[in-house]
């Protein structure tokens, strides 16, 4: 309960001003395509040089929470996920915006972000010591099985054909191997100099989601279709809150999944949203509506990717191990002031530690308020004529993918992947499983190689990868996930064939 004593520190004029700057700035940066939360926080580090430790961290903490939420804005309105965390948001969020329910989608996304986010930070406050042990429990073998668990999701994610979903996933897994392999340093599949650094995930995300959409708009041609202009429905905030509580199952699944996955170093926020989305789809009686602008999917994805913010900092704050790239950048923000995370932080600088954590708590609420305030206005983007929209998204995609690493190569990769994805989508492939493969490939590979090296030096492959409670548990979950997907697939097939007979 120590944190309550430090709440006052957040509300001093300077601190609160910084909190506001961090939150609003974070929302804008997060909504900019190509700027992941990690980059946004790294951009703000120089400003903290001039500030006191606690104040600097208020700025960074607020920016971290709100960039994660801000990513949902471009995911919903433009179908450009700002970071891997927002992929699942595009699936239902953008479809809602296309139906004119952009305001509702944004409101729901900010509300569920806040609920998930606050839960995550509370976990960080109350359960840090327990969680730290849990975070350390995941070794290479467990991370490998976790990645495989992610792979089992591929077939059922946003694709009407399991084979094509799996094939999309394979393409993604292969794309991830392009470049230098991380452990041996060997070059793989570098058939063009732009690929020398491998495929940057942010640039790939922009290409795979934004470009097909631009081309689809081109394909509609030059038409004067006043009738098709989307009416943006106004949506009362009260209604959004009620809607959120109607979707409490999705919110619960999202929050819990996000918190658990966010805790695991190295896997973290990248897949939290997608796994939560898939889980709530499996548990939902209305699972057929997922992907067609169903609020449940949006709520699950957004509550998960903000719930991971708090727990993802547990390994950093307690053990001084940054569990995610963003945590690594925050570590820099602490070190610059001579503060070492770990016991030193909580014993000798409790004011810094708790002010930082409190600022994330209050940052979540401020973020939600601002978000709700602008949601109605931002949703009007859907009214922009598609000729303008196509050109705007194209320009943003080019600038966004360039700014990731100031590299023309990333822009070429973005465009090539995008054009390829447009044609693949026309033939029944889909982007979400491909991206999941792109994310999971490196996790599975490096942990498998590392694990097998440890295994060969110690007790051998089978006991290392198959032994131990956590391994067995994860394998059981993998098998259950496959069986359940198969069961659902068979059942839906039987239904469709019955319908066909009836027809």
């Amino acid at each position: 309960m120590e944190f309550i004593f430090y709440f006052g520190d957040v509300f001093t004029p300077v601190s609160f001003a910084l909190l506001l700057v961090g939150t609003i700035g974070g929302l804008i940066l997060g909504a900019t395509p190509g700027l992941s939360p990690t980059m946004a926080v790294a951009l703000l580090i120089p400003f903290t040089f001039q500030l006191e430790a606690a104040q600097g961290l208020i700025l960074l903490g607020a920016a971290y929470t709100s960039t994660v939420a801000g990513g949902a804005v471009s995911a919903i309105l433009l179908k450009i996920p700002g970071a891997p965390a927002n992929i699942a948001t595009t699936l239902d969020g953008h479809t809602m915006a296309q139906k004119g329910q952009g305001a509702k989608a944004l409101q729901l996304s900010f509300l569920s972000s806040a609920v998930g986010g606050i839960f995550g930070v509370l976990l960080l406050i109350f359960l840090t010591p327990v969680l730290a042990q849990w975070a350390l429990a995941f070794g290479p073998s467990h991370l490998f099985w976790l990645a495989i668990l992610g792979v089992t999701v591929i077939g059922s994610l946003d694709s009407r054909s399991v084979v094509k979903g799996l094939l999309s996933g394979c393409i993604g897994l292969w794309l991830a191997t392009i470049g230098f392999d991380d452990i041996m340093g060997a070059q793989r599949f570098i058939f063009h100099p732009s690929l020398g650094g491998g495929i940057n995930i942010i640039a790939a995300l922009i290409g795979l989601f934004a470009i097909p959409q631009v081309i689809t708009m081109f394909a509609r041609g030059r038409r004067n279709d006043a009738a098709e202009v989307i009416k943006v429905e106004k949506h009362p905030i009260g209604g959004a809150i009620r809607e959120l509580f109607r979707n409490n199952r999705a919110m619960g699944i999202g929050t819990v999944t996000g918190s658990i996955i966010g805790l695991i170093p190295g896997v973290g926020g990248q897949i939290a949203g997608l796994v939560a989305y898939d889980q709530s789809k499996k548990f939902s009686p209305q699972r057929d509506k997922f992907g067609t602008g169903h609020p449940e999917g949006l709520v699950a994805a957004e509550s998960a990717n903000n719930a991971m913010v708090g727990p993802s900092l547990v390994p950093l704050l307690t053990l001084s191990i940054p569990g995610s790239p963003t945590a690594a950048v925050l570590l820099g923000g602490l070190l610059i002031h001579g503060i070492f995370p770990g016991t030193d932080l909580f014993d000798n600088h409790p004011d810094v530690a708790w002010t930082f954590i409190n600022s994330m708590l209050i940052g979540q609420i401020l973020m939600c308020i601002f978000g709700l305030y602008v949601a109605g206005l931002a949703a009007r983007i859907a009214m922009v004529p598609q000729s303008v929209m196509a050109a705007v998204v194209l320009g943003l995609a080019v600038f966004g993918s360039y700014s990731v690493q100031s590299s023309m190569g990333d822009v070429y990769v973005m465009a090539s992947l995008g054009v390829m994805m447009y044609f693949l989508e026309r033939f029944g492939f889909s982007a979400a499983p491909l991206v999941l493969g792109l994310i999971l490939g490196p996790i599975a590979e490096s942990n498998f190689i590392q694990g097998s090296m440890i295994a060969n030096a110690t007790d051998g492959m089978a006991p290392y990868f198959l032994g131990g409670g956590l391994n067995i548990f994860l394998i059981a979950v993998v098998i259950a996930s496959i069986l359940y997907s198969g069961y659902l697939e068979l059942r839906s097939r039987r239904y469709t064939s019955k319908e066909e007979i009836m027809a």
Partner: protein
Amino acid sequence: MSDLTLPRLQHIIGSGTVAAVGIWVTYVSYTQQPSEAFLFPRLIATVFVVLAAWTFFKACMGWTKVGNGISVAQMTNLAPGLVVAMVYIFWMAKGLGFYTATTIAFFVLLSLYDPAPHRALQSWLKRIIITACFIAVMYGLFALLLKVFTPREIMF
């Protein structure tokens, strides 16, 4: 065996390309050295090529259910935009500098796809204003706020 319709032909071409990529990937993974570094690619490539072959087979037999292909009208609609976008990304952006290239590409795309009549002066004015606003926002966001140094050849 039904007729060789356009979507079916497209499906054959599409899945054929994927299968060809799969075969290439498999070939490369099994021939390149060091073999430790290609262990994982081999695993992926094997699954990849099996799935791709199955999809190709289904497309040839005309069993494909998912995916609508691209109609002739859609192709003629998207071709000019796609060409402009590719010229913009692969040549103009680097050759002319980001802002100049974006201005040109944006304006051309707008003129191609904006339904407002090409004969009226008013619609041209509107396009110029929209382009100017967009470039101003992009410049403010990326050059001034984020300080990204984009390639600059002509002008800013």
